[in-house]
């Protein structure tokens, strides 16, 4: 059998792409969880600063939490596997 007609070749390629996509999706999930944990810590620090009447620390903490939220939105809406393009009508194969 010729190499070009080997049915296992395209299958292997597809598996590699799938594995890459899974890795990207896993990385995205891990990043989202890490950002959430950071935001949880920021909320605890905000509560503690408010009770301690350290008002100069409140604004930077809120800004940091906002930045984390923007990062989360970025990860959810824009950070996608590069092997496929997304349009309003769905995924388009290259």
């Amino acid at each position, binding site marked *: 059998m010729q190499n070009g007609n080997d049915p296992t070749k395209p299958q292997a390629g597809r598996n590699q792409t799938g594995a890459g996509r899974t890795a990207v999706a896993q990385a995205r999930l891990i990043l989202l969880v890490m950002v959430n944990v950071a935001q949880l810590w920021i*909320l605890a620090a*905000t509560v*503690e600063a*408010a*009770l301690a*009447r350290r008002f100069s620390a*409140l604004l930077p903490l809120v800004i940091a*939490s906002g930045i*984390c939220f923007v990062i989360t939105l970025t990860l959810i809406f824009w950070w996608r596997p590069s092997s496929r393009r997304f349009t309003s009508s769905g995924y388009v194969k290259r």
Partner: protein
Amino acid sequence: MSDNQANLGETIKRVLADETDVRSATAPHQQDFPYDREEEAQVTRREFCNFLGLTSAALFVGAAGFAGKAALDARSTPQSPATKIAGAEVLAPGSSLNFHYPAMNDSAILVRTLDGQFHAFGQKCTHLSCPVYFERAHQRLECPCHDGAFDAKTGNVLYGPPPRPLDSIKLEVREGEVWALGREASSGERSS
């Protein structure tokens, strides 16, 4: 031992039979509302991502809300009218009395130290707002939640996690009666 094993086997069979009965009994209902318990227990990656996004939004709103409320509370200056503390005139040295000042939801504690002097403080611990109490044996105010302690004369932190002194209440003794004249919260800003 073998009897126990036989009993266990019968119990397992009965439980499995019950499960089968339940499934067959609910079959018509499942046609109208088809759902699989195992499938329902699974969460897709997309759903989990959306959940994390919502959690992030909630944490941001929580932090902003808490900071905003603290800033607003600091700007508003509550009225602190002169108020007589009932029962203070009969307070023995080395003991304490709880009262409310300036509003009914602002709990406070009046301490009469062994030298006969009166001192009053807000009763909320400055760490996480647990109520402090007067510890007679050591003549200090202690917080039972996280093992913090305050000086009974000044309200300053002696040890523990509280980041600032207790709110202090100005007092005046008028003809044997003790009057509260104002309540002041100290700042927790660190001087550099």
